[in-house]
């Protein structure tokens, strides 16, 4: 029984990271209409400043925000240099996917140049690593940080979108950008800020993952991309609650599958669920079907 609970904790921790990534990914899709396959690279580019600063002895309370800022900057640059010009030309979803692939490849290559081909790890001592012993279960401090971060991001973003003026602007632009512009919303500012927020959230997930998995590499965001995408599909595009539930569920399912079935089935089950939802309930658990007039 102890093993079951321990693996549950592992799954809840990893799932929290997936959920955070999914929140950012869903935000950019729901409000900018971009299936941003480069989001995983944003996660990596959140890790890079944090890792380099930590290696230089900078404390995490500075290095982590720097990582978030780095990811946000990357997101902003991608928005200004790539996605906005495409929107101005009415390039549509396909165009944005293609340009996102290009951004992904560029960022991946740059990440390899900066970090090198060899995987590394955050320096020992950058964050407490000795697990807490709670009722016979081992809880590494990073697990606690993952759960807290998920709560902050999920609740914070929900409140921001629903209770603030700017959040309402983001939602209005996501619903109908032209109409939002007519009523005085500066869509350029809104989209830029949305891109930065989504990228920073991706960066946060990358940083948390690097500590959880003890892995810093230029490919750290790639695995998050696939799991985060699955979480968004299952939970519902643009739905924060859905991303949380689905992301955490994926983490738990993966952990229990590895323990009690076989590692071989781990990804198959995750993506099998994703396909099932696409076929049976494409709007996801908490998403809403949208009808359009013929």
């Amino acid at each position: 029984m102890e093993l079951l609970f321990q693996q549950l904790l592992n799954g809840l921790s990893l799932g929290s990271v997936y959920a955070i990534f999914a929140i950012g990914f869903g935000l950019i899709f729901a409000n900018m209409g971009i299936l941003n396959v480069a989001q995983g690279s944003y996660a990596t580019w959140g890790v890079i400043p944090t890792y380099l600063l930590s290696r230089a002895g900078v404390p995490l309370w500075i290095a982590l925000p720097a990582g978030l800022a780095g990811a946000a900057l990357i997101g902003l640059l991608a928005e200004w240099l790539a996605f906005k010009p495409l929107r101005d030309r009415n390039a549509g979803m396909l165009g944005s996917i293609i340009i996102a692939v290009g951004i992904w490849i560029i960022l991946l290559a740059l990440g390899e140049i900066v970090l090198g081909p060899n995987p590394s790890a955050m320096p020992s001592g950058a964050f407490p690593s000795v697990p807490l012993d709670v009722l016979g279960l081992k809880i590494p401090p990073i697990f606690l940080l993952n759960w807290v971060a998920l709560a902050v991001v999920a609740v914070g973003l929900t409140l921001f979108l629903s209770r603030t003026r700017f959040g309402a602007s983001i939602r209005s632009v996501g619903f109908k950008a032209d109409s939002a512009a007519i009523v005085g919303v500066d869509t350029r500012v809104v989209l830029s800020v949305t891109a930065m927020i989504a990228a920073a959230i991706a960066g946060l997930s990358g940083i948390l993952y690097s500590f959880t998995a003890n892995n810093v590499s230029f490919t750290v965001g790639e695995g998050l991309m696939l799991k985060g995408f699955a979480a968004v599909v299952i939970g519902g595009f643009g739905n924060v609650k859905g991303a949380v539930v689905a992301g955490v569920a994926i983490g738990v399912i993966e952990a229990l599958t590895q323990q009690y079935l076989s590692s071989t089935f781990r990804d198959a089950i995750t993506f099998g669920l994703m396909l099932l939802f696409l076929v049976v309930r494409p709007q996801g658990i908490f998403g809403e079907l949208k009808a359009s007039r013929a």
Partner: protein
Amino acid sequence: MKFFRPLAAAAVAAAFLLAGCASGGSGGATAGGGATLKIGLVNPTTGASSWAGVPIAQGAQTAVDEINETGFLGDQKLELTSKDSEGDPATAISAYRGFASDDYLAAICCTLSSEAGSFAQLAASLKFPTVANGATLKGLNAPPYMYRTIVLPADPGGMYAQTAQAIAAKGNVKTAVIVETADNEGNVSDAKVWQDNLQKDGITVLQVIDTFQADTDFTVPVTTILSQNPDLVVFSTQGPNSATMIKMLRERGYKGLTTSSYGIAVPSVWKVGGEALAGTIFPIPFSPDGTSDRTKDFVQRYQQQWNSQPDLYAAQGYNAVWFIAEGIKAAGANVTRQSLADALSKLDSFELASGNVVKMVDGQAELSDAVLIAQWNADGTQSLWK
């Protein structure tokens, strides 16, 4: 005029025939004095296995430069072309076929067992002399066209067997868990060898845990290991992954012995595991601290060229090139792919960068010396395990 057209056609045909003869036959290079002999290297210099691939490429280039500078092949010069396999078998084969269809004399391949699967048959069908520099996949060696210059750690009485024996001799290891990379055939077969040898030496293997090459999070397998509380954990996985798992185990209070293949011995793995690797033991085929003249010379050249110390992967690339060079020398003047293949098949011994002289048996390097077992120390150095 009546006979002009047939005569002209005959003349053109003769011209083509002569041109074909001059090109040297089956697509391979031929060399007389002063020729450049091209060797192709297919190797993962990007991607998840580039931590091995990059030093292999560097070690191979060091060997090429040394051979050219010292005039080992007389007027003939070697030229190395390296192509990135990205760790992908299809990319590796495509690059290899590119070399085979061009004027390359020989190729070096197969850093990873996952890339190596079809190379032996391909080398034979293309009649293209090829040296596998790193893959431990069984049956890869197939002379006269396919050779392997690394000593297989899984050979009977080899590195793993000797390490298992040494561990058992300590007397305080009764149980073990083995972690393998399930989608790497070499790792899987190595894990089986570990299992067989440990059990033969009286150590009970409690479980074999699967991981995968693309895995980056090992929280679940580490928890599974801890639930078994074995005296020994054997990692038949890639070095960085092994280091990650060892670090997680130590953070969670694991006090037992850990061991792995020499993939854990490279300095880049220390960046992943750090002090947590202290006490991890591994058999090792090459050490830059070796005292042989061959090792010292190789280390000096490599350091001057690449500004870093060579590791065992650099030595693999170096050994593969030197093996080909020995074959070229033995083949004599006007070497072709076939004459090189024949010469390589007759080489019965060969000196490695470590200074060990290995026997070549059926295209496979075999070590007859006792293996060195080293360990990581807390300060990042390595020493012999006592």
